[in-house]
């Protein structure tokens, strides 16, 4: 089965007053339809940058240096601006962080939904448009009456579900959700995540969930990709990531997570993440790594695929130790 999304060697830099920063260095991954991928990393690790790069929404001083983003056979980077405009929302949809707070406060929900698909010149009558939007609302478990409401009449969870509804209007192949539940309480969070799950199965899309909450990943995704300082460190199935993480960063991350068994045990990762303006030589994680070797300080490890299907970027597994 051909993956519905293939990212090959995506590179993004930011040109700032203090120098050139590599926000994303050669990221490569793929997802299949109806699969859920979690993109995990701390702030500044490059996850939002990757999403924006895939959507071709990187603005100066940022620049996508190279790479391919192939959705359903089409390389998005080779499209003209006009074609990319059409591709957004119809092939690949993005729900940005804080989307629910970005709904236009003076427009009704229904008008905003229609507004979102205006640019796509769909040949539907007004009535069918409306019906289509209402069905989208129903699929996220909202009443049809929401169509005529204003954003301030809805709760946080409901607003977020409206954003999900907007993203599925044109049945895209890939939906990217950037921290969709960060401002919501646990109960609403679960509701929203279960909605995304249902909606995904309904339209057969692939979902990329960006976040830093490993717990949420464990509950929701099929595959996890860990980013650190702009590089992919490990890409594994969720089961393997939580039971047997290979990359030292991933291992440290998993063991620092609080769960029901390890009450009172705090295992944090010593040191702090480097600024992407001045990255350490070799592997960016080497200054904080418990298993650091000489080669780690000089050579950047490539992402290699292991026997069990997962990929790791670490010299412990690159055969260069």
């Amino acid at each position, binding site marked *: 089965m051909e993956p519905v999304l293939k990212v090959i060697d995506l590179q993004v830099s930011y040109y700032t*007053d*203090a120098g050139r920063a590599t926000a994303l260095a050669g990221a490569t991954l793929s997802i299949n339809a109806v699969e859920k991928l979690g993109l995990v990393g701390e702030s500044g690790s490059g996850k939002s940058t990757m999403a924006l790069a895939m959507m071709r929404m990187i603005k100066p001083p940022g620049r996508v240096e190279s790479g391919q983003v192939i959705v359903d056979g089409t390389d998005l980077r080779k499209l003209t601006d006009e074609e990319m405009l059409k591709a957004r929302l119809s092939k690949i949809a993005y729900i940005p962080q804080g989307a629910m707070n970005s709904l236009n406060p003076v427009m009704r929900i229904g008008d905003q939904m229609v507004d979102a698909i205006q640019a796509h010149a769909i040949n539907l009558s007004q009535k069918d448009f409306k019906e289509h939007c209402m069905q989208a609302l129903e699929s996220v478990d909202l009443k049809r009456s929401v169509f005529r409401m204003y954003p301030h009449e809805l709760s946080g969870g409901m607003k977020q579900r409206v954003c999900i509804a907007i993203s599925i209007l044109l049945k895209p192949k890939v939906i990217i959700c950037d921290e969709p539940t960060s401002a919501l309480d646990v109960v609403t969070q679960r509701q929203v995540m279960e909605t995304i799950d249902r909606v995904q199965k309904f339209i057969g899309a692939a979902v990329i969930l960006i976040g830093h909450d490993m717990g949420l990943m464990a509950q929701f995704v099929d595959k996890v990709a860990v980013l650190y300082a702009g590089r992919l460190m490990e890409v594994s199935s969720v089961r393997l990531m939580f039971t047997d993480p290979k990359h030292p960063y991933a291992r440290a991350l998993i063991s620092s997570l609080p769960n029901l068994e390890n009450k009172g045990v705090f295992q*944090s990762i*010593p*040191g*702090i993440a*480097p*600024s992407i*303006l*001045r*990255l*350490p030589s070799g592997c960016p994680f080497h*200054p*904080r790594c418990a298993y650091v070797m000489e080669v780690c300080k000089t050579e950047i490890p490539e992402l290699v695929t292991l026997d069990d299907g997962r990929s790791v970027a670490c010299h412990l597994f690159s055969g260069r130790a």
Partner: protein
Amino acid sequence: MTTLAIPQPEVIQPGRLTLLFRYLRRNKSLSIGLLLILLLTAFTVFGMLTIDKKHAYPLSVPAKLPPSAQYPLGTDFFGRDLYPAMVVGLWQTALIGVLAGGVGTLIGVVLGFISAYFGGPLDSAIKGICQILTPIPAFLIQVIIAGSLDKRDVTIYTMAFIVVLLSWMGTTLVIRSQVLSMKERQFVSVAKLSGMGDLGVIFIEIMPNLLPFIAASFVGAVFGAVFASFYLAVLGLGPLREPLLGNTIWAAQSQGAFFNSWWWWPIGPAVAMVLILGSLALINMGLDELANPRIRRTE
């Protein structure tokens, strides 16, 4: 808990002066405005130190002479040497502007702070007064007051007073709304938790953040004061003996300078006025951008 002694990669922050210059390069109105004001100030200061001030007053030099080497701007009907007259005029305009502008801004800042910080009936009273006084046409009131004063009582300082009377309300309301929003910020709560009293919060926590607004208000107030003194003088309501720029224009016009082809008489003050007001307006626009946090902060 251990801290790893990692050799932190040094992110070299550009120095503050460099950042300032880069900002000025981007904010053209501010830079050009500042440059013009600097030039005007240099001209005035140099002038004040080198001229004979007595020549700025009537009957000091031969009258109605066109510009020459001895009298670079010529002389007027009353026997004033127009070059020293211009210099003294600029100096006096600056005085009125800064005095009236400064006092107006000070009143505005104090009232704005008190109103916003302490709230309650005091706030309603101050806000109410501002809202009532704002729609009153200041120009009209100024003309009436200046016109009804005895000619001998009109000095630079009375002019400044007349101007200040109806110019403080805008600043008050702007500062008030800024303080209102700022006093709810969490760094104010934390300062209180650290033992800071109300006065400390006002002067140490809130005031420094309002400096761009206060600066912008000050420049606006100076602009208003200079402009007001100019139009009042042009109407002949200023201290007539002083070589105020507006006065010169009024005198030139009332003596029919253009009919008599004394073209050099009103030209100096007119150009000077355009430059002063223009530079102040440019600085104001530039500061507006600085004060709007959304636009700046690209460090």
